[in-house]
């Protein structure tokens, strides 16, 4: 704002529309104000209590400041082909509402129990019917591929949904790098098995009776489609552990449980791999698990879903579920000759 002329003469002549220095709020104060407003937003209940009581209450109810998992910013492009117009689910909800039974079966368990999860060193092995088996380390995951941001709908089999901006790379790209043999028919995935870090793998009561390590799989045609995505980031930063750090699969036209988290192994095979939820209850969870409003889960309807968006308890909306979660244009062809009632 100080013109060259003003600098030489020692007198500044700012234009009449410019703010004077004393009118500008310093950045620090600006941020503090936001934090204060945020803190007040904790709830009218909090605001109505005297200070000491408040401190006591919040200590009692677990707002203890455990160090959160450290996430880093990522560089990525934003290809327009993989964006949708739906409003994003706030980050705060995406990182605090997770099914990740390795860290406990209730929705907030992963957020509570996964913050000290170690992702370095990490090894992701790509093996089986490939020309060049690969092993990627943590650094490779964010540097070996051109990262892109894709906004995908996520539909959980429990009939709630979110809209999530993932950062990562396409699964097909990785498989091409490894060189898939023409004998391959399926791709299998496996989550880390580490009971010391994952209490749900140690304790049946906490882990929901799943046989660990968690496994998943897709057909080779599904895997080579443009949609399957290996996410290493969320909202522009590396993934938090409750969302599947350091690398997870995202299959937006299938129910959420197919999108396996914290992957350590990708194996190209010539037979259909076992999948965790199918092993546990095959009448409820099929191998395909495509989002399909016409095929109900035995215990609940899949025709509509509760969309988790901005705002408080009463602001959620119920919306009709779309066939293939709205991704039919890209994937419907894969199932042309398949009876989706039988192969659910």
């Amino acid at each position, binding site marked *: 704002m100080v013109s060259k002329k003003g600098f030489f003469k020692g007198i500044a002549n700012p234009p009449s529309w410019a703010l004077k220095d004393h009118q500008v709020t310093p950045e620090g104060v600006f941020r503090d104000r936001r934090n204060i407003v945020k803190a007040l937003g*904790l*709830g*009218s*209940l*909090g605001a109505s209590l005297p200070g000491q009581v408040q401190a006591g*209450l*919040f200590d009692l*109810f*677990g*707002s203890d400041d455990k160090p959160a998992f450290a996430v880093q910013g990522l560089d990525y492009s934003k290809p327009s082909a993989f964006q949708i117009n739906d409003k994003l689910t706030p980050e*705060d*909800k*995406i*990182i*605090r*509402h*997770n099914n990740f*039974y390795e860290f406990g*079966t*209730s*929705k*907030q368990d992963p*957020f509570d129990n996964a913050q000290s999860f170690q992702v370095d060193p990490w090894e992701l092995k790509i093996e089986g019917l490939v020309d060049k088996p690969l092993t990627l380390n943590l650094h490779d995951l964010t540097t070996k591929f051109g990262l892109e941001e894709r906004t995908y709908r996520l539909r959980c089999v*429990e009939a*709630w949904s979110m809209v999530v901006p993932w950062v990562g790379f396409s699964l097909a790209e990785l498989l091409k790098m490894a060189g898939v043999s023409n004998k391959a028919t399926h791709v299998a995935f496996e989550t880390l098995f580490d009971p010391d870090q994952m209490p749900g793998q140690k304790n*049946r*009561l906490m882990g*929901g*009776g*799943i046989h660990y390590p968690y496994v998943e799989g897709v057909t080779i045609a599904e895997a080579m489609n443009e949609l399957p995505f290996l996410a290493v980031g969320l909202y522009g930063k590396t993934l938090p552990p409750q969302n599947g750090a350091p690398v997870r699969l995202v299959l937006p036209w299938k129910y959420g449980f197919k999108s396996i988290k914290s992957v350590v192994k990708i194996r190209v095979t010539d037979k259909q791999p076992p999948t965790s*939820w199918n092993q*546990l*209850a095959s009448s409820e969870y099929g191998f395909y698990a495509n989002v399909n409003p016409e095929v*109900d889960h035995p*215990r*609940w*309807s899949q025709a*509509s879903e*509760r969309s*988790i968006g901005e705002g408080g*308890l*009463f602001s*959620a*909306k*119920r919306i009709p579920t779309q066939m293939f979660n709205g991704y039919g244009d890209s994937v419907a062809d894969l199932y042309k000759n398949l009876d989706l009632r039988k192969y659910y």
Partner: protein
Amino acid sequence: MRLTSRGLFWLKGFLHLCFMSPIIYLIVQVLTDNAGGDPVQYIIHFTGMGAINSLIVTLLISPIAKKFKQGLLLQTRRLVGLYVFAYACLHIAAFISLDLLFAWGFLFEEIIKRPYILVGFTGFVIASLLTITSFQAVKRNMGKRWQSLHNWVYVLAVLAPIHFYWSVKSEIIEPSIYIGIIMFLLWIRRRQIKMWLIKKETPTEVSKVSAKADSQS
């Protein structure tokens, strides 16, 4: 030590505190953002557990009263029973308002189509009937029929853990523990329940027996 009526007063106050505090805890958890990113399932599960836990407490009262010869204790059953109903109401209200978002047509369709919801709903109907007939005046008017209606609490005790077991995805250990506890509490009453069931099936014979008993007394 025998429970006095003064002791009963304080015991009732204590029970109110015990059953109210989880509700206050839940409200604080939700208001302070400690019930997760999407508290809906948390609230539904929490209130459902409240109902089933209170149900177990009601079923515990009479065995305890018998064992320790504390007749006055029986007077807390209505209080605890009403909390079963209160938690069940919160549970259903949360399901309808927060999960289904008042899609009533969808709710009725679900009740008919989904066995676990049908089981839960049947339990709720029983709890409602027991609640509206829990007033002293109604009890007096109903005479003998009151007891036979209130024996339906045993049916409720069977339905509630089945509903719980059926509603979970895979975490069956916790509901199995509840089924075990309730089966035990019903087993203690096996004679009473058998009597109640037999009375229903063959009313003539039982009335003969009771007539005989009456003439003897």
